């Protein structure tokens, strides 16, 4: 059996590791249009910020492919899938057969249609080559100010990294506040103030409408409000959309992302999709949707890989969650942390001078979302309550405690967590 994987990040690694957990004979071919061995995209901001060197971007060791008997085909772009023939075609015309195919093609950065995008000094920020480009640009050009478009996860991480490089940064966000899809107003304001205290100019309800260059290099950007911001570096960190073009052209069912079932199978039973490209089940909102986060990508890849070799793994679905650090203060959003409305009960605790904030969202007797700023100790206990759909009505008064512990939880659930499946007391 030959398994072909298109993509070379978290979902691909999850798949390869799961396949080899159960099966040593299947042939595995990993095809990536990037020239690099497996690296961690979320670490790019740590690399750009100078916290780690390039070697530490490696998500798995250089012997990963060999140890898992997987054959990498790097620098290779797939241009078409033919589900009827069970083949994929590369840009150079090579036709490769598959028995099972995994689409782990990830996302493509959203680039707004701004005149002047081809100007030197304009970058996106989701791939290593872009990060290397930014670093090269910083070394070869005097940069007095950088502008980051996007106040979401990618934009914030890019901003934080450029700050660590000592650069003045202006951040431009279309929404009325930063991190609006993950955080509520209060958390968003806390982080905005932190950024401002560290010299970041945060411009909300605004966007870049034009890029002005001088000698081919970016010199300024024009904003929607008519202002012109002189800058020598522009990072487009708006977000990603599912890279589902191949799947669409192959006739697979695609909404926003590639629609998959609980085993990550697409509408073609021999083609799977996992990671940022997939529209998989989210157990909190009880819907299939795309959630571009690392843990989901790895887990979905593992579910797909296992199923390909005949091991159906029970999957209860994913949870949208993320963590980001702004000027040294960690923040987390888990599930529907910023949900508002009559069907939700919201518990909050704010200590603004110490940058501490906690927001818990309950729906009926269940916890469905959490936002944490500052103190993120034991945050996973909340995630467990959400994932396991635990009735928290008896312990809700404990949930806001700064010293949340397993002893704050219902006895039965605590014993389940402490002892693990099969050895419950």
């Amino acid at each position, binding site marked *: 059996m030959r398994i072909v994987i298109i993509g070379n990040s978290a979902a691909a690694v*999850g798949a390869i590791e799961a396949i080899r957990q159960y099966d040593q004979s299947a042939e595995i071919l990993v095809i990536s249009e990037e020239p690099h061995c497996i690296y*961690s995209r*979320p*670490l790019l901001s*740590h690399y750009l910020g100078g*916290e*780690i060197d390039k070697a*530490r971007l*490696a*998500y*798995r060791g250089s012997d990963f492919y060999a140890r898992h008997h997987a054959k990498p085909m790097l620098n290779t772009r797939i241009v078409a899938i033919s589900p009827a023939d069970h083949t994929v075609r590369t840009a150079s015309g090579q036709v490769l057969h598959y028995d099972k195919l995994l689409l782990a093609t990830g996302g493509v950065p959203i680039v707004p249609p701004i005149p002047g995008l081809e100007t030197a000094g304009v970058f996106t920020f989701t791939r290593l080559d872009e990060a290397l480009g930014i670093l090269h640009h910083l070394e070869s050009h005097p940069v007095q100010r950088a502008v980051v478009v996007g106040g979401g996860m990618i934009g914030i991480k890019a901003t934080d990294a450029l700050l660590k490089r000592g650069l003045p940064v202006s951040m431009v966000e279309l929404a009325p506040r930063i991190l609006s899809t993950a955080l509520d107003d209060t958390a968003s304001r806390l982080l905005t103030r932190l950024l401002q205290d560290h010299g970041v100019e945060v411009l909300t309800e605004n966007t870049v409408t034009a890029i002005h260059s001088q000698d081919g290099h970016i010199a300024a950007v024009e904003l929607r409000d008519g202002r012109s911001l002189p800058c020598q570096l522009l990072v487009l960190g708006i977000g990603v959309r599912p890279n589902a073009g191949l799947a669409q052209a192959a006739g697979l069912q695609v909404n926003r992302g590639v629609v998959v079932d609980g085993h990550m199978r697409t509408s073609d039973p021999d083609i799977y999709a996992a990671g940022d490209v997939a529209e998989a089940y989210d157990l909190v909102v009880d819907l299939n949707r795309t959630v571009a986060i*690392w*843990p989901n990508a*790895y*887990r979905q890849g*593992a579910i797909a890989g296992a199923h390909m070799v005949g091991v159906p793994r029970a999957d209860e679905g994913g949870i949208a*969650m993320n*963590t980001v*650090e702004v000027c040294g203060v*960690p923040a*987390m959003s*888990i599930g529907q942390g910023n949900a508002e409305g009559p069907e939700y009960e919201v518990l909050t605790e704010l200590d603004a001078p110490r940058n501490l904030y906690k927001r818990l969202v309950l729906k009926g007797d269940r916890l469905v979302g959490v936002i944490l700023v500052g103190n*993120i*100790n*034991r*945050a*996973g*206990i909340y*995630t*467990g309550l959400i*994932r*396991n759909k635990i009735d928290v009505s008896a312990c809700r008064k404990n949930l806001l405690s700064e010293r*949340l*512990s*397993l*002893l*704050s939880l219902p006895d039965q659930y605590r014993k389940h*967590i*402490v*002892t*693990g*499946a*099969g*050895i419950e*007391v």
Partner: protein
Amino acid sequence: MKRIVIHEEHCIGCRLCEVHCLVQHSCSRDIIKAFRAERDTIMPRVLVEENGPVSFALQCRQCPEPSCIEACISGAMHRDERTGAVVCDETKCVGCWMCIMVCPSGSIRQNLAGTRIASKCDLCYGAEIPACVAHCPNEALTYEEVP
């Protein structure tokens, strides 16, 4: 694989497990030096949970499909090939706290001294009996082959 089994009915909350875990993970391996000179940079990887008469010592539960490995963005969190234990390679960890966000028992902690790292139980790297189990005076922790 052997795991640490918690017997909360035997725990007396003495916290000797925390003390000996810290010593085990110190450079000096000496109880006085560990607490006098190294206390700021190391922390116990076991935590005694206490509420009134109930207490128990909690460390990583060694989940069969660990969320922390799934969520780790640096590849630091992994299963040790030799011992089978879920451990954090502290030379790779960047302190992003994804593991803390997903660990259902809350047994991974931030170590902010020096390079920021996620601090967790490593089952004393293949020791015959982990330090917390070995030094528990009331067998509130045992080390057993669990299916």
